[in-house]
């Protein structure tokens, strides 16, 4: 049974986490390969379990009840198509990250610091996906949060990282609290915490609605939905790069899993307004995330903001799925849900790839600020090549995988004029426009990221003397790059593999993707639309090959190297190049006034005056200003007021306790 093997592997990961300090103490130099090697093997076992359960059908699925945890509940674990799909996403990412980590860390001060927490983090993420009762789910969720907090704090000497860890801890506790309340509502007054009981129970509409809101707050904050994303761009870049890859590529997917599990599977029949909320949040996250990303100078923070964007895209798909599900449009709902899970899978691939690339840049050049990089394509050719692949995939360009999933979501949007609700009919095309805008901005963002980091001339001595990294890191990246290409060129089998998932969630499935002719995929029916990544890839290869052959054979293949032309005014200083800021300036000028209230003030001295001219730019983070800052003020104010409570007499404390007891009893009496 894969479920038993999976649980044993999770136990193995926890075991590795526990013996890691011992290994570090005894044999420091062996610790890294042993811990990451063991994590790699165990993640591989878990991946096989997930694949078997996803592709093998009911014989490989199942559930287990263990007598651990709370005495009257025990611990329930289950492997159904949904958890199997996410088990594959989690452990594919975990496997590659472990492989990468074997070689990574040469530039770190204390690479051993993360070793005990790394397998614990993997174990936590796997347990969330495998749990089948609320108690186990919440414990695993909190375990995942805390172990990843320890990983974020790996570089705690830096004050900025300590702040990131603090904000992360606050948001994670808030999220878990919301999940706790959501599960409490689902369990009802009788309190049956097993998922199967929640699934079969009847839920009152307002309870289900409240559960949706709580899940958006709880799982949405972990996934990075705007406006709950504030911790993500601080915490994800603070960790070592292979952990950043796991947090951005994989942990956000675990949060998406939690959302799908509760909202689609446990919370009962959705109402149409659920889709409205999810669509608005998704579209907002997509556009705001990428607008932030395009302005960042820190390579890893740029990638973290782009995660916010991609999570938004996944939620647009899920919102469409909810809209179609309430209206019993099974085929369309299946398309939307499959597309968004496929996008989650794709994002886990290319975001890990890009974070690995950022890790290589950090190792090779010791710099994360792209304004100080440049020209790395000559010093780190393989990293540059692989990072370019990731950029193409995340910018949704054919024939890679990011395009396929976004194309499927656009196709789902084209089915929505049949929706009966007017609000949705207006909202869905608007979110389609937002999706297209986000995709176009992502292309600009990654042209900037790649162009400034890897192309042009080195902007600092660090970039000039950068060195290529070791084989482990490069091989891990090649594996991800190959998967991106395969998922983009042959998407059919991936979509077929997800059909039991959509069957479980919305009671329908996409049409069986024909393997022939030419590996094309069809979202609804052949006459509406189809796409063949294989043919597009093949045609591009053939056309460029033909062009090169013809020109080289029949015209000229001579090359002469010369100084740059630059219209006759070449400047020897690299400081005259376009910088990251100047590249983003036009985009900032067009979108900044709306999204960030951007203002530029130019103070020009009078002619003859020797004062320097000053250009001041102010960008405001409106989410922080309008939501978090007032909240912070309110908390401080309340704390100040309640400070009185610290200095009461024992009599007053006793009367307060008594009053609280009476109040609770009255509440219970009226409730029942």
């Amino acid at each position, binding site marked *: 049974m894969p479920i038993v093997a999976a649980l044993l592997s999770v136990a193995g990961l926890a075991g590795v986490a526990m013996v890691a300090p011992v290994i570090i103490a005894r044999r420091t130099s062996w610790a890294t390969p042993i811990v990451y090697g063991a994590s790699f093997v165990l993640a591989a076992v878990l991946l096989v379990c997930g694949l078997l359960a996803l592709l093998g059908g009911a014989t490989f699925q199942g559930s287990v009840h263990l007598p651990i945890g709370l005495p009257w509940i025990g611990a329930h674990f289950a492997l159904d198509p949904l958890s199997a799909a996410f088990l594959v996403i989690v452990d594919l990412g975990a496997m590659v990250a472990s492989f990468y980590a074997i070689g990574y860390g040469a530039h770190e001060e204390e690479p051993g610091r993360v070793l005990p927490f790394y397998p614990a983090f993997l174990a936590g993420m796997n347990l969330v996906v495998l749990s089948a009762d609320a108690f186990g789910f919440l414990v695993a969720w909190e375990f995942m949060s805390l172990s990843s907090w320890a990983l974020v704090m790996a570089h705690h000497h830096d004050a900025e990282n300590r702040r990131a860890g603090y904000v992360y801890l606050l948001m994670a506790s808030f999220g878990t609290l919301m999940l706790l309340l959501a599960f409490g509502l689902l369990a009802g007054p009788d309190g049956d915490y097993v998922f199967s009981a929640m699934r079969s129970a009847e839920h009152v509409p307002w309870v289900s609605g409240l559960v949706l809101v709580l899940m958006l707050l709880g799982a949405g904050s972990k996934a990075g939905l705007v406006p709950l994303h504030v911790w993500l761009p601080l915490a994800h870049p603070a960790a070592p790069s292979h952990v950043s890859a796991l947090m951005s590529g994989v942990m956000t997917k675990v949060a998406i899993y939690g959302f799908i599990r509760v909202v689609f599977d446990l919370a009962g029949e959705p109402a149409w307004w659920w889709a409205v909320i999810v669509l608005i949040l998704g579209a907002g996250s997509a556009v705001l995330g990428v607008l932030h990303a395009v302005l960042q100078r820190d390579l890893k923070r740029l990638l973290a903001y782009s995660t916010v964007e991609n999570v938004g895209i996944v939620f647009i798909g899920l919102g469409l799925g909810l809209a179609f599900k309430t209206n019993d449009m099974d085929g369309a709902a299946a398309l939307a849900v499959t597309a968004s899970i496929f996008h989650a899978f794709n994002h886990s691939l290319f975001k890990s790839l890009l974070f690995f690339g950022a890790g290589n840049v950090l190792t090779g050049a010791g710099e994360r600020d792209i304004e100080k990089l440049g020209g790395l*394509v000559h010093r780190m*050719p393989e990293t*540059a090549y692989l990072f370019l692949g990731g950029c*193409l995939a995340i910018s949704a*360009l*054919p024939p890679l995988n990011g395009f396929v999933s976004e*194309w499927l979501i*656009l196709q789902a949007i*084209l089915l929505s*004029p049949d929706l009966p609700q007017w609000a949705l*009919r207006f909202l869905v*095309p608007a979110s*389609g*426009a937002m999706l*297209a*805008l986000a995709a*176009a*901005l992502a*292309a*600009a963002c990654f*042209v*900037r990221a790649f*162009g400034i980091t890897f*192309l*042009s001339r080195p902007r600092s001595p660090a970039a000039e003397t950068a060195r290529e990294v070791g084989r482990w890191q490069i091989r891990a990246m090649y594996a991800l790059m190959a998967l991106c290409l395969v998922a983009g060129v042959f998407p059919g089998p991936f979509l077929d593999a997800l059909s039991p998932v959509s069957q479980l969630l919305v009671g329908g499935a996409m049409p069986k993707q024909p393997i022939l002719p*030419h590996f*094309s995929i069809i979202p609804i029916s*052949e006459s*509406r*639309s*189809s*796409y063949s990544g294989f*043919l*597009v890839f093949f*045609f*591009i290869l053939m*056309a*460029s090959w033909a*062009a*090169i052959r013809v*020109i080289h054979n029949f*015209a*000229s293949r*001579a*090359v*002469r*190297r*010369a*100084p*740059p*032309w*630059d*219209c006759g005014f070449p*400047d020897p200083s690299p400081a005259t*190049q*376009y910088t990251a800021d100047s*590249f983003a*300036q*036009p985009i900032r000028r*067009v979108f900044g006034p709306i999204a960030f209230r951007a203002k530029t003030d130019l103070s020009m001295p009078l002619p003859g005056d020797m004062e320097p001219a000053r250009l001041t730019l102010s960008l405001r983070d409106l989410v922080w200003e309008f939501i978090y800052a007032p909240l912070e003020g309110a908390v401080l104010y309340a704390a100040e007021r309640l400070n009185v409570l610290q200095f009461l007499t024992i009599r007053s404390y006793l009367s307060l306790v008594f009053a609280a007891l009476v109040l609770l009893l009255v509440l219970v009496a009226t409730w029942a």
Partner: protein
Amino acid sequence: MGLILAILVQGIQMVLVLALAPGLVGFTRKVKARLLRRQGPSILQPYRDLLRLVRKEAVLADNASWLFRNAPYLIFATTWVAAALVPTFASGLHFSWAADLIAITALLGSARFFLALAGMDIGTSFGGIGSSREMLFSTLAEPAMIMIVFTVALVAGSTQLSTVAAFMVNHSTLRVSLGLALIGLIIVALTENARVPVDNPATHLELTMVHEAMVLEYSGRHLAVIELASALKLLLYISLIACIFAPWGMARQDDGLLGMAIGAVTWVGKLAVGGFLMVVFETAIAKMRVFRVPEFVGGALMLGLLGTLLLFVSRSF
């Protein structure tokens, strides 16, 4: 037999677009010169330019990377594949189901991605300014194009261009949404092809500096391939507008040789009319400041969104 014929038609289309693209550019230059009361070079001049360029050696900057050398071929290949999938003289192209209109838009996006990167490779200020502005324009032109695709797809019930063309031939009625889409598509086409109100294809040393600034460092065969790709892109957009909004005369799947010939002649006629109208528009209007362009292209986005919304309200718009 039918399959061979279909593949043959597809092959003829690929060769035809390649052969006609420089001619279209020559034609527009000639018309523009005549409108400005100049004599102008011969229509065949772009062919001669291309031949001369491919025969010359390529001069590469000292620090040009592999990306700089390979990008022109990738740009050319993606543009050519996109152009080959737009029905020109015959609907029902054999491979048209391989990529729908959204995929064609994204293929052009791939070409632009590589072009912008190539502009940044040498590390000159001209290349950077071109890439930065090109990406700015594309952030509005691409969603505008997607919304126009939505409008057309909702009318025709498909995003496949062949199906759309067949639908338009059989159900040619006037619709508000299609009118909005047409205006939007024209704006997008002018932007994407770096034509006058947005950019000036005739110079790179004005303050326009978008497309021509990016390719400033290219020479010889690389420049030839890029020039050919941009000519193909112009042809693609005019064919696209013709295929969606003026599909008359296009040969259908079961039409014989005569139908094909009629289709080819009308297509060449449409290209000439399209190129002529574009040049008249260009001569009549002045170039915009760079930061006016987002308003211009943003207008296309709004038109596309409006068209889509109208169709969500009622299918009869």
